[in-house]
């Protein structure tokens, strides 16, 4: 006969309904954009007032600068779409029954893609697929698909197996369990992988200029080649700002898309 003495256990927990989005998390999200705006404004002021040589003024002209930024964003956006379209479905597939066995192989390839020096990847692909935008996108995808793929798998594997069984046990099909239980619960982990991939993309896209892929890398390489520090620093600063901005957007999406009740 067991004598239960611990009454404290039965005391009901009082949690406010729908208690999420605590103020602290949102306050944290406000610091980053403030910093980005301050630095961006400082750059614009400097650019408008500084006296520049001819070689500096051309790539730093407003339209040339805008074009470089747009090129850069275009590279990132196209690569990101491909990364999501490949990484998430592949991650889902590799956690399903018979395909599970292939996961070490695919993860191995993805690991190699990321571990290989990015610049080498760009040059190798360019010699194979030709110089230009297309090769740059392929290289970027290979380089940044791993975090999305891995986090999709980890997120899905992290869903309590008993919940999957509860879903199947009440008559949900395997697809319904995936769509209504597993993926929603994996969203936070998947999105953090997506954010990592995006930040990697913004940084790595600077290398696209070596294979004639355009982007902000042009400023940096020109700055190095012609020994013009102004260009070098401007390029580096803009890439950093872009990466921070993308990271912030990612964080906001993560906070908004986080399933309620977790």
């Amino acid at each position, binding site marked *: *006969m*067991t*004598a*239960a*003495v*611990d*009454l404290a*256990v*039965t*005391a*009901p*927990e009082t*949690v*406010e*309904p*729908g*208690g999420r989005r605590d103020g602290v998390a949102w306050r944290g999200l406000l610091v980053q954009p403030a910093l980005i705006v301050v630095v961006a404004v400082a750059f614009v002021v400097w650019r408008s007032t500084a006296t520049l040589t001819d070689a500096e003024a051309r790539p730093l002209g407003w339209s040339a600068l805008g074009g470089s930024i747009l090129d850069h964003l275009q590279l990132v956006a196209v690569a990101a779409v491909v990364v999501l379209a490949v990484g998430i479905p592949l991650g889902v597939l590799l956690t399903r029954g018979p395909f599970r066995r292939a996961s070490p192989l695919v993860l191995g390839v993805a690991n190699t893609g990321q571990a290989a020096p990015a610049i080498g990847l760009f040059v190798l692909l360019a010699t194979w697929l030709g110089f230009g935008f297309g090769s740059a996108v392929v290289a970027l995808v290979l380089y940044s698909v791993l975090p999305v793929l891995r986090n999709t798998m980890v997120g899905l594997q992290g869903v309590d197996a*008993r*919940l999957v*069984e*509860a*879903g*199947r*046990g*009440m*008559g*949900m*099909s395997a697809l*319904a369990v995936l769509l*209504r*239980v597993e993926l*929603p*619960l994996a969203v936070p982990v998947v999105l953090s992988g997506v954010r990592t991939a995006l930040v990697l993309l913004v940084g790595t896209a600077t290398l696209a200029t070596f294979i004639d892929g355009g982007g902000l890398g042009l400023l940096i390489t020109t700055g190095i080649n012609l020994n013009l520090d102004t260009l070098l620093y401007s390029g580096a600063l803009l890439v950093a700002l872009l990466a921070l901005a993308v990271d912030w957007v990612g964080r906001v999406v993560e906070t908004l898309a986080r*399933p*309620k*009740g*977790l």
Partner: protein
Amino acid sequence: MSETLTHAGDPAHDRTVSGVAIRLEGVTKRYPGQSEPAVDAVDLEIAAGETVMFVGPSGCGKTTLLKMLNRLIEPSGGKIFLGDEDVTGQDPDQLRRRIGYVIQAGGLFPHMTVGTNIGLVPGMLKWDRKRIAERIDELLDLVGLDPEVYRDRFPKELSGGQQQRVGVARALAADPPVLLMDEPFGAVDPITRQRLQDELLRIQEELGKTIVFVTHDFDEAVKLGDRIVVFDVGARVVQYDTPEAILAEPAEDYVADFVGAGATLKQLTLTRVGDTGLHTPVTAAAGEDSAAVVTRATAAGEQYVVVTDGRGRPISWPSVAELTRTTTVPATRDERLPVVGLRSTLNDALDTMLAASQGGVVVTGRRDAVAGVLVVEQVMAAIQSTRGETRG
């Protein structure tokens, strides 16, 4: 080896039965690479509306057998019938929507509200919205949770016991004739477990489902089961009988060992609180004039008074001496008030007394209204009498 275990002489049920019978014929599960089958040709018949408890050591195959009933585990051989229908070849997803399934800690989906969780199966069965919403409220009511308060909460905002109740409500949502329960109350503390068991007994009395319940706790099996199946390795059915019969005459030494040395005391689990002579206490409504209540209690020779709320539910149990110090009967709720239901066992009552450090418990009946009080002396007397019986 296969022998069909049937029970021709069903106990006369005068209660409602909404369940169907389950029949297993030579159900077997073999895993590749294992020489012995996990479940070896089990034949079993479960009568409609009965609660049958599966007990046995871990690894004996009882959970495997349960999961073959809703085909979460596909049998390697044999047939399963629900009523007269052979469901062995049926689409598992369709089959499972007709079989409620409750697992440990409820298995609620944390990203869905309580209401959404309960409405899942009706939704899959294409009920219309209004009917689902009504059903959700009806079920929350049935498991003792206020729909207004709990419908839109998320599981993490509920205590373990409340989550488990929602788990039961979700399993009952589409009114399935069969309920499978896989150690559902294993993860809650003893007091909550006892309340959940009482609740299940009450619900079962109301609904009369066919329930198959896996547990490793023999006391739980005795308390909840109409019949108990004791399994050995390979899901060999060692004994299939009523709790009384298994306790009185274990079929083999194996069962006797499993039932344990405390079998005499286990008789306490067979005796329901409602079957003992309950003492009728003096009750007082909160807000009543204290002097009048004290006079009434003194006249009845009582030391204690049960204070009830507007609906006759007990809220505190003060002594007459305490009441004399007040002008009106206080309406304060005593959170530690020991309460058990009429269907609780003497074992539960004793547990509750010990947990509250009190010499008695208030017993509640329909709609949680006071039905009487039970004091420790009565429990002791019951122990004495069963000890006497087994010796004599």
